[in-house]
């Protein structure tokens, strides 16, 4: 299965600022996903990022708040914009192979103060 490197692993940010999270995969993948996991909660899909097209956002998530880039088949970024304390969460990227296998990065633990 793919190996995912996610950066940064954690950060503490001031409200009103933005943070860009990077996700690097060791193999080419068609679909990449970004999830949010609030403390003690389950994972919620933010958006699906396909190379060469705009990301598809889930209900409750908008591009202005969570812009995503997918410049090639091994890399994606998620930006959390104009942050507030409510954005404090773990953000994870994930990829899938053609056999329904999903692999997750270790996540970025974001605290907004």
């Amino acid at each position, binding site marked *: *299965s793919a190996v*995912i490197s*996610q950066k940064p692993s954690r950060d503490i940010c001031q409200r009103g600022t933005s943070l860009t999270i990077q996700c690097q995969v060791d193999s080419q993948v068609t*679909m990449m*996903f970004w999830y949010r996991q609030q403390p003690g*909660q*389950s*994972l*919620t*899909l933010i958006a*699906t990022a396909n190379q060469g097209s705009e990301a598809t956002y889930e209900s409750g998530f908008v591009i202005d708040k969570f812009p995503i880039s997918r410049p090639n088949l091994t890399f994606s970024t998620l930006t959390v914009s104009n942050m507030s304390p409510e954005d404090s969460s773990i953000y*994870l990227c*994930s990829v*899938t192979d*053609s*056999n*329904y*296998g*999903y*692999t*997750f*990065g*270790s*996540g970025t*633990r974001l605290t907004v103060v």
Partner: protein
Amino acid sequence: QQQVKQSPQSLIVQKGGISIINCAYENTAFDYFPWYQQFPGKGPALLIAIRPDVSEKKEGRFTISFNKSAKQFSLHIMDSQPGDSATYFCAAVTGGGNKLTFGTGTQLKVEL
């Protein structure tokens, strides 16, 4: 709307005991049901998965039981060990495999 319901929220089991976590779903379009294990500070890792044409799948100490008519599936951890202490998520995928829907999670603690 939560499409995959998971219970219990937390579970304490003695070492050597059996841990059982249950999930139920509504969407009959789901055709793949994985279980994920997550340790603190780590992303979820695939533990075991099943498709609805199979009623049971076993891998080592981990077994999935699947009841298609009841739209329920469960994870059994036999001979539970302290190292199994983690959060477990059931999940479901619709045809095409392009979106995971997670259950709410079960925090398992295995005591000595």
